[in-house]
Each structure stands twice: as C-alpha cells, then as structure tokens.
C-alpha cells in the first residue's frame, strides 16, 4: 500500500473498526442492537451539523455560526409559541430569519470577500447575542406541552427513534445533492479552484450564498431535533465544545479544510469514530474529563499520521490556507 492511498479517511476508518472490534470483545454491553441504535442516535445531531459543515467546507468555507443558529433559531421559535404566536406564523418567521442569516454569511463571504471564519464567527456571536438579549428571557426555553415537537420526539418506528431516520435521510439527501446535482458538483469545482470555476462560467458567488443558506437550514433542523428529544433547548450549548466537535467530525473523516475534497462518506466515518468512542467510554464508566482527553488525543494522532504520510509541499501550498 503506498502512502497516498493510506490517507486520513482510511486511517480513521481503521481506527474506528479497531475500536469497535475491541469494544465488542471486551465490553459486554457494546455489541447489541439497542446500543448500536443509541450510538447512531447520540451522534445524529452532531452528524447532521457535520453534514451542513461538510457542504460549506468542501466549497472552501467554514461555518462557525451553525451551533448558534441551531440553538437560537429553535429557542426563538419555542419562545414565540410560548408567547402565544400562531405556530405557522412563528415557523415562517424563524425560517425566514434562518435563511436571512445564512444569506448574510454567504453574502459577506462571496461578495465582500471577507474570510468565512470571521464572518461566521461574527454572525454566530450576533445571532446568539441578539436572540438571547432581545427575544428570549432566559437560557433555556421549554417545548410547550402537546406541541408537535414533543410528538416527533416520541415517534418510534421499529423502536428506532426519529433522530436516526432524519440523520439517515439528510445524509442521503446531502449525498444526492453533492454527487448527482449540478449545484452539488459546483461545490467541488468552487472548492477546488474558485478562480477556474468562475472562469468556466460557474456562478461561484450565488452558489456560495446557497451553501451557507443550506448550512443554516440544516442547523435549524438539528436544533428542532435537539428540542424534540430534550423537550427544551438550552442556549448555553453555545459555550460548549459542540462547535469544535462538529468541525472535528467533519474534518477527521478526511474532508480537507482547503476545500474540494471529500463527501458524505467522510462525515459518516468521522461520526462513527466519535460516536463509538464516546459510547465505549461511557460504558466503561470513564469520566467525562478523561473522555475528552482520550478523544482529542486520538484525533491528534490521526491528523499527525495524515501529515506525516501526506506532507504538504512548500511550492504547492496555498497562501492563507490555515
């Protein structure tokens, strides 16, 4: 096996399989259907966010506002319901808001040429700040009794929770989008070489806006799912490591931050690694602190291995590619 075929994706895949196999052997509660379902479920919100992140990153961007949009859009939505707004009106308002924020991200990145890392960092802060200070009174907003989100959260098919289906459906949709639609292919062209993509007549800038809008909408779905299963949305999630986890899940599976590479498969591999790892460690009753350490050390090992096997070249490295 030569070095180039031994890429990060395979390294992570092998690591995932190794962990899964040894867990099956050594941990009694690991290899059974309910646990496997719970692994998928525990990773589903993270995985859904990672799908949105993947679409943006493949197009050579990054979206740091996803977690903020996820939590705050749903918090605002629930707050409006709690305040007695009409459900459809509230939903329409929130979706409009979500699209507007996505479009703002895209506009600033595409038309104002501002680096996406700052645009989305700024809009993320703003979305959290605005909604938290102006629209909702406290950190957490509860799902009202009997709301459709509550029903959705309790929906089961073959004893499998709805999160799993939505994750699978969105993965499939993202796969179709990226692989088989014209706009999806544009994501790769624009990510690989934006200047060339523009020269051959691809509407690079509008497509960029589209990607950020998609990411925002996906975040909203992830937020709805979170609220459905917890019956409330906790906006303090902004302060957590969730955003970093989303980036790691996206990137660890082999989607390069410089764009143009990877796909849904990589997200799934990354999700599998993180999901299995967390599950195994919880079963083994490893404390959360050690879990963080173990998880991040494995991630570091993976990117170091990738860096050693596929070194970057001084001559071909892109300027400003961090």
């Amino acid at each position, binding site marked *: 096996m030569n070095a180039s075929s031994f890429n990060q994706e395979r390294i992570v895949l092998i690591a995932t399989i190794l962990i899964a196999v040894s867990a099956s052997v050594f941990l009694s509660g690991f290899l059974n259907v309910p646990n496997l379902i719970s692994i998928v479920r525990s990773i589903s919100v993270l995985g859904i966010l990672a799908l949105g992140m993947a679409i943006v990153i493949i197009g050579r961007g990054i979206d740091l506002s996803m977690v903020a949009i996820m939590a705050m859009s749903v918090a605002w939505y629930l707050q409006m319901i709690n305040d007695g707004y009409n459900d459809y009106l509230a939903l329409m308002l929130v979706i409009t808001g979500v699209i507007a924020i996505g479009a703002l991200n895209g506009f*600033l990145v595409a038309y*104002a*040429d*501002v*680096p996406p*890392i*700052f*645009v989305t*960092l*700024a*809009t*993320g*802060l*703003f*979305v*959290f*700040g*605005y*909604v*938290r*200070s*102006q629209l909702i009174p406290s*950190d957490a907003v509860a799902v009202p009794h009997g709301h459709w989100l509550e029903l959705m959260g309790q929906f089961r098919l073959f004893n499998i929770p709805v999160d799993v289906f939505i994750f699978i459906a969105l993965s499939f949709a993202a796969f179709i989008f990226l692989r088989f639609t014209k706009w999806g292919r544009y994501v790769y062209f624009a990510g690989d070489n934006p200047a060339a993509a523009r020269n051959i007549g691809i509407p690079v800038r509008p497509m960029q806006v589209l990607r950020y809008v998609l990411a925002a909408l996906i975040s909203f779905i992830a937020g709805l799912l979170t609220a459905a299963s917890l019956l409330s949305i906790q906006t303090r999630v902004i*302060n957590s*490591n969730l955003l*970093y986890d989303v*980036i*790691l899940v996206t*990137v660890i599976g082999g989607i390069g*931050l*410089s764009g143009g590479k990877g796909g849904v498969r990589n997200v799934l591999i990354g999700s599998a690694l993180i999901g299995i790892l967390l599950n195994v460690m919880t079963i083994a009753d490893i404390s959360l*602190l*050690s879990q*963080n*350490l173990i*998880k*991040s*050390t494995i*991630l*570091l090992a993976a*990117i*170091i291995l990738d*860096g*050693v096997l596929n*070194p*970057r070249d*001084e*001559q071909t*490295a892109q*300027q*400003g*590619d*961090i």
Partner: protein
Amino acid sequence: MTFRERLQAWRYNLVPDHIIGEILEKRWTDNAIPFVALIATVAAFGSQIPGFFSLYSLQESTRQLGEFSLVVIGLTVVMLGGGIDLAVGAIFALSAFAAIATFFIFALPVWVAFLAAITTGIIIGAINGYLIGYIRLRAFLTTLVILIIGRAIFEILIVNYGSIAQMSQVSSDIWDYIGDDIILGFSVPVLTTIIVAFITHIALTRSRPGWHVLAVGGSRRSAHNAGINVRRTVFFTYVFSGFTTGLAGFLFATRLSGTGIGTGHGLEILALTAAVVGGNSLGGGRGSVIKGLMGAVIVLVMTNGLIRLGYGTGTNQMVLGVLLAVAVTIDIRWLKNRHKVLNEMYVAPVYLKMDDAPSAEAGSGTAFELNNRLSKARSIGLGEIEGPEDVILDRNDHLYCGTRHGEVVRFFAPDYTESEVFAHVGGFPLGLAFDRDENLISCVGAMGLYSITPDRKVTRLSAETRRSFTSIVDDAVLRDPNDLDIAPDGLIYFTDSTKRYDAHDWTLDSIENRGTGRLLVYDPKDGSTKTLLDGYRYTNGVCMAHDNKSLYFCETWACSIHRYWLEGPKAGKAECVLRNMPGYPDNINRASDGGYWMAWLGMRTPSFDLSLRHPAMRKRMTRRLPQDEWLFPNVNTGGVVKFDDDMNIITTLGDLTGLSHPSVTSMREHKGQLFIGGILNNRIGLYDIENADKNWTAPVAYWGEKS
C-alpha cells in the same frame, strides 16, 4: 484672467488636495480605522460608567487587559506569520496552573513558579510549532485539537489538585506584589505588556527574524524560494505565542491566586476577535503589534463595559458580533480598494496659465524656428540600447550612456560600433557627469546620486536630504534625481524633479503640474546633501556657467531656464532668465563657443496649455479615463537649442520627420560633434556641428588638460 479662471486658480492652487492622497499613501492610515474605533469605544464607555477614568479604577481594571494583551500580541505574531493559534486558551490555563501548583503546592519560590509558567507555555507552543512548522499540519485544526487536549489535561489537574493548592498556607510578598501592587503608576501586567509590546514591535519591524516572520506570512512560497527557513520561522512564531501566553498565565495566577475550570475558557475566540478588530489580517503578512493592542483594548473595554453597565446576557455577544463583522469587512474592503482609491485620489492638478510662446514652427521666422537638421544625424548603437537619457564622453573619447535597464553602457572610440556594459547600477541612470578624478557621477532615477570609478566600482553618494517639516510623504528621499553638474570645488549640484511621484511616473507629474522640484547640492567632503531650492515645476537639466560663478537649471513644465548664483551679489539666489519657450527643456550642457546646448523633451501644444488652466478637467480625466486616453504633454517632437549667457537663441536643431530624434533629452558637444540622447529613443545620434572648435572637449573645459 476671467473670474471663472480666478476661482479655479484659488480653488486648485490654494486648497491642498494633494494632502489627502499623501495621507492615504501612509502605512499608518491602516491604523486609522481601529484607532477611531478605539477612541469611540473608550469615550462611549468612559462617559457612561461613573469613575471609569479615575486612576485607581483604571489601574485595577487594566490588570486583566495587560494579561489579555500579552495573549493577543502572541497571537498577532502567529497571524503575521500566516498561522493561527487557537491553543492559547489551553496554554493560558495550564501556565496559570503550573504557576499555582509550583508556588502553592510545592512551596517553591516565585521565580520558579514564573519559570514553570513560561516553560509550560513554551513547551506547548513548541508542540504547536513543531506540528505546524515541521510536520506541516494545518494550523487551525492542529491548534484546535491541542486546545481541546490542553483543556482536558487542565481540567483533570484542577479536579485533582485545585483544592490542595487553595488549602496551602504559602504566601510571599513578591507574589502579592506582582499580583496586587502598582509600580510607577502601572500594574505589573500593564507594565509587562508595554515592555513586551515594545520589544516585539522593534523585533518585527527592525530585525531579521521579524522580517522573516512577515515574509513568510506575506508569501510563504516566495519566502521559501528566497532561502528563508520557513519551517523554523513558523515554529518560532508558535513558541513566541506560547511564551507570551505563558507570561499572561503567570500574571493571572498572581492576580487571582487560584484557577478554576473556567480559567481561559473562550480566550482563544476573544483574542482572535481582538487581533482582527485591530486590523491584523488572517493569512498573514499584514498587521502589527500596535493593531493587536488596539484590538485588545477595544474588545475588553466593550465586553467589560457592557457587563459593568448591567446589560443582560447576549448583549455582549451581539455587540461583539457586529463589531467583528464591521471591522473585518471594512478592513478587507479597504485593503482591496486602497490602491484604486489612491490612484484616483492621488493626482491633484493645479491651475497654471502659460503665456503665449513664440512659435517654433518651421518657416515662422522666430528665433526658436525648428529645422530638419537633426534628421541627418548618424546613429550609434541603434536598437542596442533603450532610453539613453544622458550621454557623455570621457578624455579618451569613449561614449557613455545610461539605459532603462539600470546599466551604464560604454561605446568605444573612435567608431562607436563596439559597446560593453560599463557598470550595472540599477534604477534608471539619467544625468551623467565626470568629476576631477574621472569618476562618472550619475543621477539614478528612483535611487539617488551614484559614483562609478574608472575601475567600475559603484558607490552611492546620496539618497536623501533633510526632510522638510511640513512634508507628509517623506521628502527626504530622492525620488527622481534627474541631472547634475560639478563645480570646480567638487560640489555636485543636482536636481530632484518631483517629490510626489516616482521617476517612471513623470507623466503624472506633468498632469498635476504642482511645483515640487528641487535643486540640491552634495558635498563630497562631508557626504552631506542640502536642499538649495524647492517648489519648481519639474527641475531638470543643470549646467555650470563657463565662468563657474553661477549655474543654469531648467524648470521643465514651466518651460523656463533659471540661473542660480554661486558667487557675487546674488549668491544663493535664483532668477528666471528665460521663460515661455515653445518647448519643454531638459538637460543643459556647455558648448565650445561659450554658449550652452539645451535639449527640448517635447513641444508645448495649445491643447495642453489650455488644459493647464482647467485643473478640474484634468482631475476628471485622471479619475474617469483609462491612462492611455489621457492628455499628456507632447513628446513626439523635440529639438536642441543653443543659447548664450545673455539668453540669445543662437541656433536650433530639429528632426521634423520624427524618425530618428523626435524627443531629445540630452546632447554633448565633443571635438566638433554633437552626441544626442533621448529617454524614449533607441539610439544615440551623432551630428557634425558647423564651425565648431574641433579640439574642444568638456573634460578639458571643466578640469583642464590631464597632467
């Protein structure tokens, strides 16, 4: 003069439009936006918060600012080198813990705690640097993972040892002094920040390692190809960031004497925001410590101010988000459009009414009437040279000229068919002169005054004069040294045509028509350069009068010749001796009959003369039309004019065909022949002068027979 014209003259000659362009050209204008934001922030919160400016309150509340600024300085350096360091949040916490543990748990002296904190910072910085610099991992992802690992380790340490540290009875005056006291009116963190910022600023702007960082950040590939050790440079930026963050962690430890799980949480985002709000660009190469500091102050004053004013959760983030978005967008747009704005704004034409000139047309019967005699000149080096602005001959009859490529080319006597590159100077060698020791002195466009010894050693004589007090653009620099002549006492008199444009942009200077040309003198005895005269519209040729008591120099765009007195009652004064010529004068050189040869670069046209009375029109022209459609002075027809000390026009030479010498910038008489140069020409002309002294040569006329 009509009233309209008078208004125009007032408007364009009295209002200093050019200052705007000159200010915009300054690098420090980059700092203007964050600086204004800084002032606005401090003013807004200072006026809202009672007691904000009281000394005690400032001293106490800026401790955190000191620590934070140190982190931002480190991050700024990393960003200048083209990277990013998200691990600062972990480095800060671990360094603080290292200091706490060393001091409180192991009861070691304060300096050991200090070393422990710094070492912790440097080690983690070195890990980052090694992974990113040497293994070439991506900075964002790598430092993100290091951040998470670092914080996980920190949390585990806190869980296990945090309370032990707090139960400790250790205390030390030094520790408390660092944490709580005031030195010279400053708290220790602020003092440390000032020192570190100063050293870092000097290192970045004035030392080799600092330049390497900027070079790597500006263009990694070019830096690599230029032989800079890119990997090591990147490595050290992270080590430095680790160092400053470690320092900040130590100061934090002394300030609070305790660390908790939240220590340094989210610091990386806040520091990144500060660095960017200050105007440092992501991707490297552009930014400064000052910008980082301004960003730090803005961000902290704003966040703490909002909390202090009792605003609820979220207001802070909302304001920060807007601030960040606006700052980055302005920064990016400014960076992108700066050149456009500058190009549009910079040319600021003035009003000038030129009086009618006598005609130079063939058959007009005036003294300036041009003929076609130059078209018969033979060619030297046709097609071999480009842009011989000036030509000169030495005692051995060899011919020298400068070229566009920065070379001085020598043609060998007697037939001038063979040539060699006599010396490579760089820039664009323009005026030439031999001194007493047969060194070739040259005014090199865009570089300065240079000397080339007979054995081809090139030395710089002068590149700057004293800066004038009112200058905005640095006018100490010689931007367009043009022509020179040398007095018997060895003083070199030379012209610098414009302060506002580089040598190759001389056409822009003609459109602007602002008087910024200078006459200067260089004294080879002490190497000093002095400005003698200032404020002429493109000073050009210089020639010592035959009696060496005065010198002549041209003012090209005013079509005038001035006489500057070196001796006698008018010594040190200049007078205009010839004005309103029909051509734009260039170099002046001595003739064998006691007169002077003067080159005409081009001829005045009624259209351009008219445009000089319409500065608004020229301004519009430079803003709205592409450059090749602009109205320029005519340089398609020139000529040679001989005048004497009484300003009688003795003879004229022209090339009405425009084939061989359309524009003439220089000519030298040598043994009855006239050698003709042109800045836009591809040859040197050779013209036999009627009734000339066949033995006269300039070196002898200037310096006498060789002993």
